[in-house]
């Protein structure tokens, strides 16, 4: 019995080899309270029990943002029923052009369960600072108007509200799915 207990302990303590970059040690995720399309609030603290994927972008972004949302769509599909315990949250850092309704329509193109949320500029700046990232408007001379320099990574918060992983742009679907399953199993 003692041997089995020890073996179980060893297995239980085996470090998980995540595909994403792991935060060590995991720490409580920053406070994130944003406006959503329903006129209510998205509060990261209310998502306990679900794994949360969080990305800072904007709807006029033609390249990185739609690619990330398309990637998320594949991840959600691959997760199957367990996707019900995953929240995909797209935070617009361009509140001047992205009101909550616009944002909701945009993310719904990819999946109706995706969450679009935003806030005023000062709140967004505070939240981004707490994630050690920032966004800035830039003029490029494009006919599409200004662009926003923004983080390319996806942040992952576990079901206990801890910031656990960071994904670079373009992570493989199978790797993200494997990590989410690990986190859902309590890793």
């Amino acid at each position, binding site marked *: 019995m003692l041997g089995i207990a020890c073996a179980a302990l060893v297995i239980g303590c085996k470090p998980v080899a995540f595909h994403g970059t792991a935060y060590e040690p995991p720490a409580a995720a920053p406070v994130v309270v944003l406006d959503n399309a329903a006129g209510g609030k998205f509060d990261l603290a209310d998502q306990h029990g679900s794994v949360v994927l969080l990305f800072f972008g904007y709807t*006029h972004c*033609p*390249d*990185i943002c*739609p*690619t990330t949302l*398309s990637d998320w*769509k594949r991840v959600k599909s691959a997760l199957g029923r367990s996707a019900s315990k995953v929240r995909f949250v797209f935070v617009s850092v361009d509140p001047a052009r992205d009101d909550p309704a616009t944002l909701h329509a945009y993310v719904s*193109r*990819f999946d109706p369960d995706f969450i679009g949320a935003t806030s005023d500029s000062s709140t967004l700046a505070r939240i981004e600072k707490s994630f050690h*990232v*920032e966004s800035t408007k*830039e003029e*490029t*001379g*494009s*006919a*599409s108007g200004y*662009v926003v*320099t*923004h*983080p*390319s*990574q996806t942040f992952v918060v576990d079901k206990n509200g801890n910031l656990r992983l960071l994904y*670079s*742009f*373009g992570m493989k679907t199978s790797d993200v799915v494997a990590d989410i399953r690990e986190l859902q199993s309590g890793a």
Partner: protein
Amino acid sequence: MTMSRSFGAVACVGIVLSAVTACHRDSRPVATSFELHDAWVRADPDSGSTTAGYIRFVNGTQDTVVVSNFSSDDARVVELHQTSIDAGGETHMTKLDTLVIAPSHIVVMRPGGYHFMLIGTTHAFAPGAMIRIAMHLSNGAIVSTSARVKQ
């Protein structure tokens, strides 16, 4: 992200690039022309918006090809852009005037790198539809291709 490789290197690693880079026994590619492959555009359900597209350019000639302008009947303006990601993970987007494809080189547009932007789309871009894209070269020639709309 841009990938630019000499044809010889492509032949050596055995990457299949359709008939364009099929090899002779001396491992040289048969391509002798400037060709466009795998063009696609991201779907967009709204008219009047902006979306991005991607093409793989194969320059099998001995001359540098300079794409100086893009156009399409399906958008008010088409611009060439490049996304880059810095060491801190921040994305930056730059509007470019030209795209240069060196002799015997391939340039691949892909998410996170070179792309063309269709600004002021004239209709919804539904998955499966085809969008015609024209490229104006610095030598005065115009080449075009059909880009499939994908989600």
